[in-house]
């Protein structure tokens, strides 16, 4: 087998380890400490924010307008409405202002 194949398969194994590992470690404990619990509760907001923030900070008017509209829609509507309204604003504004 080529080196490339080995790299891909090792990377796949390492990735699977991250996806199963957190649960394997935590499930060894009978009870989860309240502070660990509080940390886990914060995981979605904390991690997902890091996937947005640098792109948002680098964004121009079209990106910021899309986020603003999506944020407003999110207050009332569901996830799909939020996404589609933001995407529509983004695509229209990019066509208009490049």
């Amino acid at each position, binding site marked *: 087998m080529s080196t490339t194949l080995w790299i891909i398969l090792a990377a796949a194994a390492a990735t699977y380890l991250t996806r199963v590992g957190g649960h394997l470690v935590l499930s060894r404990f009978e009870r989860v400490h309240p502070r660990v619990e509080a940390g886990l509760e914060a995981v979605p907001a904390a991690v997902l924010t890091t996937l947005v923030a640098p792109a948002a900070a680098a964004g121009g008017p079209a990106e910021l307008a*899309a986020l603003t509209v999506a*944020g407003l829609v999110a207050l009332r509507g569901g996830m799909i409405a939020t996404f589609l309204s933001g995407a529509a604003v983004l*695509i229209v504004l990019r066509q208009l202002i490049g």
Partner: protein
Amino acid sequence: MSFETMRAAPLPGEFLQGVKASLPVIIGAAPFGLLFGALAVENGLSVPEAVLMSATVYGGASQMVGIELFGQTVAPWLIVLSIFAVNFRHVLYSGAIGRRIGSWPAARQALGFFFLVDPQYAEAEVKGQRGEAISFLWYMGMALPIYVLWVATSWLGAAFGALIPDPAALGIDFLLPLYFFGLVMEFRERKPWLPVVALSAAASIAAYHLVGSPWHVSIGAAAGILFAVMRPAGAGGDDR
């Protein structure tokens, strides 16, 4: 049949609910699958290798980093380590979602964790937060379309990469951040949401410029999570 699928909605309904949750992800991720395939071939991977990487690693950002390094003369172990580093955030997803799917039979858990990508985790958390059980059918209803699409678009991009138009013109490069932003908003009832988001945003932006990608994810996430961990115990729950 497992306990949680029995007490949940009728079975096809559960699966279709999962499929419905996958739709925005498919729109957002398809361009990246194409882009990954095209860049992979450009960086010296064969078409089967590019498809294999999508089918086995199954993590967009880490695959991008991987092929970036394939293009240079980097030691193999360093490529694997870099991909591991980009994917390290999944340890947190795994620990958090394990509390919701830990009652599945072991084989289903083992399979389910393979598909634990960002949107899969987040949508499962949203569903769990609504007090609904995470059934295996719902989970796979969301996971399978995304997976099939990811592998298929990777192949298309690798085979016909030269035909892809400029992604920026259609706003494609910002669709996934937009999608993740929608998910961040879904968790706004979960206190202390605002300080966690503010700290993670500030830390990830700073780390993005000072340390570089992909470390901004781990550093930014750590800032928000540490705040939640260190907060005085009495402040927990619903007071602010």
